């Protein structure tokens, strides 16, 4: 049997395989260059980038929880101009599409960041972060209401010709109206899910463990929730590819998302545990196709659905 076709299209962009990194968990890729074969990724999704530099939240910023972790980094980044100068020029050596996650405190911020990144020619797609749970002003506020999410996506859509992905928050009663609003506003694909808001308390100190009090829960603990949300959005049949993420530790976990209706997957917290998870998942998806005598992985998207 010839090598299975793992490729997937996100807007106009064709990825050689459906494995991506989840924004914020893989830095700028270069941090992992000694521990993983970054060039084997379908696409590299780098850290959230804002118009101005952000210091991030006060520590502690991470705490372990059962089969997971809470983080409250607070979108620390050097701002879009430094990202363009210092970070993006180093990424072409991986020879894979680079996707920048963009965030802001206002629609104008998002638009400005999208426009600057689009001008550089160093970025192949943008992911709108409308779901960061760790920032007071922006991020998640846009992601909780279909009308404001639609407004944000339309504005960014008008500012860039790059394929546009919208990353959705799971911290809502029903994720489907938000998914629909993003697609109707021109999003080419959807990422789901961002982290679930949580709190952990140090009972001896009688204080929250995180400096920010709340943080975003990730890791295997959230996987069933993420798979369920992919399932729900896939059922709405919105006509755009879905990128599933939430606690994927290996190829079996990735297949859960694909069988639920995801066209692609992103690896997040697992990068901290096993730095070459991305490579193991790519290999494992190919092995799965061979074992099940499937030529195209995309033929399995949603195959668990009735």
């Amino acid at each position, binding site marked *: 049997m010839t090598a299975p076709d793992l490729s997937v299209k996100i807007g106009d962009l064709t990825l050689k395989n459906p494995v991506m990194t989840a924004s*914020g*968990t*893989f*830095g*700028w890729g270069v*941090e*992992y260059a*000694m*521990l993983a074969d970054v060039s084997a990724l379908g696409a590299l999704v780098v850290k959230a980038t804002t118009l101005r530099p952000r*210091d*991030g939240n*006060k*520590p*502690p*910023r*991470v*705490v*372990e929880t*059962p*089969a*997971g*972790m809470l*983080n409250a*980094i607070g979108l*620390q980044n050097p701002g879009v101009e430094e990202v363009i100068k210092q970070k993006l020029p180093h990424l072409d050596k991986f020879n894979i599409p680079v996707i920048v996650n963009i965030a802001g405190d206002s629609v104008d911020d998002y638009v400005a960041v999208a426009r600057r990144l689009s001008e550089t020619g160093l970025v192949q797609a943008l992911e709108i972060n409308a779901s960061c749970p760790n920032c007071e002003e922006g991020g998640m506020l846009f992601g909780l209401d279909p009308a404001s999410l639609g407004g944000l996506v339309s504005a960014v859509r008008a500012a860039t010709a790059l394929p546009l992905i919208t990353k959705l928050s799971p911290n809502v009663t029903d994720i489907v109206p938000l998914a629909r609003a993003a697609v109707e506003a021109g999003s080419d694909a959807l990422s789901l899910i961002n982290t679930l808001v949580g709190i952990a308390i140090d009972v001896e100190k009688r204080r929250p463990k995180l400096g920010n009090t709340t943080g975003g829960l990730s*890791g*295997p603990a959230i996987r069933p929730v993420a798979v369920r949300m992919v399932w729900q959005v896939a059922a709405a049949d919105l006509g755009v590819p879905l990128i599933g993420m939430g606690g994927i*530790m290996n190829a079996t976990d990735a297949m859960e998302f694909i069988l639920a209706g995801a066209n692609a997957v992103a690896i997040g*917290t697992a*990068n*901290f*545990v*096993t*730095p*070459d998870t991305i490579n193991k998942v790519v290999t494992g998806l190919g092995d799965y196709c061979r074992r099940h005598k499937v030529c195209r992985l995309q033929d399995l998207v949603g195959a668990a659905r009735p």
Partner: protein
Amino acid sequence: MQNIQAEIIRNDPELDDYSVLELHAPHVAENARPGQFVHIRLNRLQDPLLRRPISIMLAEPHSGTIRLLIKKVGRGTELLCAALEGGTIDLLGPLGNSFPLPPEGKDVLLVGGGVGVAPLIFFADVLQKTPGLRSARGLYGGANENQLAVWTELAGRCEEFYVATEDGSAGEQGLVTDLLAEQLQRGDAQAVYTCGPRPMMAKVAAMCAEASMPCYASLEQWMGCGVGACLGCVVPGTEEAYLRVCRDGPVFPAEKLDWDNVI
């Protein structure tokens, strides 16, 4: 830096709440410098999920072994203390920066508290073995004699060595910073290197600033990736808002840290 499977050669439970793990990890043993750490996966399951950063206590390049001092402070370190000889441990390392070597000449002071003594033992070992460098003077503090499990490892590598315990059960009664005050008065040391509880290090940093003495502190923090990517392990700085313990540290010139907010 590599991700390796290291064989557990020995696991010595020193006292109730400490263990010394000896691992066969040639890559780490050959490349590690004092102050660096390894990032250890606790088991092959998904809970506890995250790796634990552990300072390297000693590295022996010719035997390819490293030793780690583990204090039981929670679920993860309890698992490590219970690790079986003959088994393997998945680790990333060596990670982080290291204590800057002093120039030839005057002595250096090593100020350790509790389990924080580990990287200072490695440093003292390198100082002792490096021709041309003077040996260190070690100062060590603990709550009582039971906490002084491995101070002998430091004592044997220092030219002079002093101990203080809060209850007076070993050495002088008092704090390690009392010992430091005496040493600073002697005026013949050129730098201070410290690792231990944060209140202790903050005091050491303040005393050194007062005495215009260069001071280097090794910090620990809850950590995600260990390689500088996730920005989870930061501490507040004086020049930059936040510094990564895993990549910018774990060793920092004391004046680069905002000690009032290092909690």
